[in-house]
């Protein structure tokens, strides 16, 4: 073990020097970028179900609480806890029982405080006109871990975005998706109203993402079809297109995959998904 020198920010340096170091430390990616990466890698569904289950568990004992127990549960980061949470969520989702309402509500109540990822999907494409929900300020799951407190000392932007989480809406729970079929549910007029269906949009995409994650591309495509027919003004279209791209790739439908890739490049040329689209089209050398 060596004696590390005092860091410049803590030393007797000039105000300018400290300001520069401080500015570097404080720069953070947007929560949406994290969310997109989770989606691109194919683990957003895992994370959201894990979080939802943990949230549901904590909500069951303390509905409307600050979410601190859930934060602690996640922060422990143990594989066992995650596995248990995931299986709990999976069981709940598979059954499609009424508790899915609880899970969705819990998702909006506590997931934001837990992970910032599902919450970020709410932020994603949201105008910000929605009422902020209270978020535990200490909940920074993308921040330092107990074993390594110095890696991510601050996440101000993440927290800022989390403050934009809408208050739990009158949640519309998406019915359990059919084993196969064009649409998971008949369009509901209320579901198409702006600001009222964000939770349903997230749930719909989560279902498609999970289907894709298990290799069931046809079902994922069916769920995405349902999503697009159900939500006339989708706020998560880039993610929909990305999931379509992956689903078509998985099924070997190259023509459709390339068509979606071109659509992504046309509509969202600077998005993170554009890189994947370019790869599919062979434009990245």
């Amino acid at each position, binding site marked *: 073990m060596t004696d590390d020198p005092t860091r410049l920010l803590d030393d007797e340096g000039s*105000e300018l020097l400290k300001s*520069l170091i401080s500015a570097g*430390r404080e*720069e953070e990616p947007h929560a949406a970028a994290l969310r997109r990466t989770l989606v691109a890698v*194919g683990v957003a569904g895992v*994370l959201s179900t894990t979080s939802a289950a943990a949230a549901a568990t904590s909500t069951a004992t303390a509905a409307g609480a600050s979410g601190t127990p859930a934060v602690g549960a996640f922060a422990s980061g143990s594989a066992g806890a995650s596995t248990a949470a995931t299986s709990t969520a999976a069981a709940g989702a598979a059954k499609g029982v009424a508790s899915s309402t609880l899970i969705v509500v819990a998702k909006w109540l506590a997931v934001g405080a837990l992970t910032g990822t599902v919450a970020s999907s709410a932020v994603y494409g949201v105008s910000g006109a929605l009422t902020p929900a209270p978020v535990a300020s200490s909940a920074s799951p993308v921040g330092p871990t107990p074993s390594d407190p110095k890696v991510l000392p601050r996440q101000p932007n993440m927290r800022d975005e989390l403050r934009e989480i809408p208050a739990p809406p009158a949640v519309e729970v998406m019915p359990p998706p059919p084993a196969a079929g064009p649409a998971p549910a008949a369009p509901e007029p209320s579901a198409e109203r702006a600001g009222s269906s964000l939770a349903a949009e997230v749930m719909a995409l989560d279902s498609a993402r999970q289907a894709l994650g298990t290799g069931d591309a046809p079902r994922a495509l069916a769920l995405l079809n349902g999503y697009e027919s159900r939500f006339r003004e989708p706020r998560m279209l880039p993610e929909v297109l990305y999931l379509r791209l992956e689903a078509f790739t998985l099924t070997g439908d190259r023509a459709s995959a390339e068509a979606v890739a071109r659509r992504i490049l046309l509509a969202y040329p600077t998005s993170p998904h554009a890189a994947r689209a370019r790869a599919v089209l062979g434009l990245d050398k």
Partner: protein
Amino acid sequence: MATPLSEAGAKPAALVEPRLARLIQEQFGFVWRLLRRIGVPESDADDAAQQVFIAASQRIGDIRAGSERAFLFSTALHVGSRMRRGRARKREDFGVELEEQPDLAPTVDELVERRRAREILDALLEEMPLELRVVFVLYEIEQLTSAEIAEVVGTPLGTVASRLRRAREDFSARVARIEARRNFGRQGQ
């Protein structure tokens, strides 16, 4: 280019695992900031970070527990350098030559604007050799210990200490020159 799901072939579910999700969630900020400090412009940082984690997803089975950050570090350096080679190094993207830009000397009020401060920080780092820069960034900005840096970078501890000392001296000297110019400018007004 990465194909996270399709290349997984018959077992895409292998990608859907809590370890990978946690890795992304816990280290995304670290990777993103590292990319920024090694010169990836903000407009490309999201893309670059995503590429790093896609690479991690494809190798997650090979990454030993405890070595995740070292993998992410080396991958980020690779992605960052490739991205920088791929684009013309415009001055507005990668900072400026301090000696040619006397107006870089900021007032204290300007430093309230963090963006401005980061531009100056990146301009200073840009002039630092990469091997010094990464050690400086990991120590002063990411606040890793020297031992952690040695592990992440794969360099002996003594080398880390030496590079860190040189980097700090270099950085402090450059900042002092900016301050001297600022003071000189004030006196001339």
